[in-house]
């Protein structure tokens, strides 16, 4: 490990310097979702017994924000460096592919977790929610933001233009997050959509995370953990392979 600590520090500093945009803005978005959906649906929906809809919504929104921001951090940093050309300053030093991978990944997770904490901090004084199984909540926060942090690295490496990255975000990440049971329980869906949701790794991150608060979930937390961890591991192996081959980075 030569450059890993510095690259991690640089990546964290990079989003922290513009934290109004990278942390405050997504927290505000999550709050707006909460206000609008809570107002519209609170009286109609009760997903888990003893849990109000607003309470049900908060962990989902927090996880959605974590997933989106972890993705945004690694993908936007890499594509900006590629397009402006300053990626050479990372490619010329004696850093191994695994160091580069780990630094972008951990920075993305830090951003995701900071935004997630921000969402809880902002909602805490509105609606208190229980934390029944804190270790599960932490575990899924880490795996979920890790999964999307890696996906962001892949998207940043693969994209050559900003609109390609936007397509990745709008046509893959957004639909998968919105269809992952943030706003509803997948049990309320018709069988076809329920089945489809079970193929969505984001669903497991959200469902498992919610288990950490209410000790209730759509599927077993162990199954969720296994599925989310497997996705994270597979994406990591793919990304490391891309970095080792220098795919779209070393020509």
């Amino acid at each position, binding site marked *: 490990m*030569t450059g890993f600590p510095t690259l991690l520090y640089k990546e964290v500093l990079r989003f922290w310097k513009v934290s109004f945009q990278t942390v405050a803005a997504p927290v505000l978005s999550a709050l707006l979702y909460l206000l609008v959906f809570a107002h519209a649906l609170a009286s109609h929906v009760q997903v888990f017994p003893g849990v109000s809809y607003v309470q049900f919504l908060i962990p989902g929104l927090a996880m959605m924000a974590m997933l989106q921001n972890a993705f945004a951090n690694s993908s936007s940093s890499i594509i900006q460096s590629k397009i402006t050309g300053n990626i050479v*300053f990372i490619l010329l030093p*004696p850093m191994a592919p695994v160091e580069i991978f780990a630094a972008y990944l951990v920075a993305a997770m830090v951003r995701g977790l900071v935004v997630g904490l921000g969402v809880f901090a902002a909602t805490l004084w509105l609606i208190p929610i229980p934390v029944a199984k804190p270790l599960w909540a932490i575990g899924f926060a880490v795996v979920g933001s890790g999964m999307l942090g890696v996906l962001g690295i892949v998207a940043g490496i693969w994209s050559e233009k900003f609109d390609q990255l936007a397509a990745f975000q709008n046509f893959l990440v957004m639909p998968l997050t919105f269809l992952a049971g943030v706003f509803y329980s997948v049990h309320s869906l018709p069988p076809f959509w329920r089945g489809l949701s079970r193929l969505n790794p984001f669903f497991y991150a959200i469902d498992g995370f919610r288990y950490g608060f209410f000790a209730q979930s759509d599927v077993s937390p162990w199954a969720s953990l296994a599925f989310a961890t497997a996705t994270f591991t597979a994406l990591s192996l793919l990304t490391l392979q891309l970095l080792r081959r220098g795919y779209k980075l070393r020509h």
Partner: protein
Amino acid sequence: MSVAAAAAVDIRGVEKRFGAVHALRGVSLEVRPGEFFGLLGPNGAGKTTLISALGGLARPDSGSLAVMGHDVAGDFRAARRAVGIVPQEIVFDPFFTVRETLRIQSGYFGLRRNDAWIDELLERLALASKAEANMRSLSGGMKRRVMVAQALVHRPPVIVLDEPTAGVDVELRQTLWQFIRGLNAAGHTIVLTTHYLEEAQQLCSRIAMMKDGRIVAMDSVANLLAAFSERVLRVKLEGGELPAALATNATRDEAGYWRIPVEDMAQVETVLARLREAGATLSGLEVSEPDLEEVFLHIMRRPGQELRAP
């Protein structure tokens, strides 16, 4: 240096294609430790691709490259520690100040406490007053000097500068060359590409010229000048004729000057004496020294095959 000492840069049979473009066609060259080596050639000759391959930014299809005896693929950590590359395009990270940029770059090489050397670099590159300024606020020439500093944070024995003076004003260019010459005198090996041939002639001890992905000439500057360039006496005659003895070697240019190749200054005197004897009167006279530009044009105009200066 003993004979066995590793070359500073050792490039052997490097081939590289980008799709249909054959960027490097079997390039081999060796730069000795402590040399000031010039890599010249027109745009698209493959210079930047070769430098990219040396820094691990491009991967050759075949052949090998080594810096201070370390293979750039097999022993990439040691190879990258041994070389500092200043890329051709001005690039920077707009999130950071000059000092942050240099601290971060040091950290990538595993150097945690590098402030004394960073301060010295800032001082010597006339950037000290801009240390806390954001990269965005710097002029192009200053950004270029920060890039030079970034390439030197780890004190590499081999320094590669890819057209470092393109678009840099005269004063800055002088500061930069003074600095690079100092590094060379202190033992650093310098590899330079430039389009300013007079710079290359002044600075470099040895030169390779590239064309279409090949090295077409490689020798010391002195040998290249001797082989491909000549001292020429240019005279314009007002009255009288050019004596027959002189006319055999002479050619006439568009401006009406006779161009007479001469070996040295003594021969200039002989030619002038003969002209006087023949009753010729001069309205114009010039002696042009051999220069690298002439060598360059001569070599670039030759048809394709690899040749070396005799």
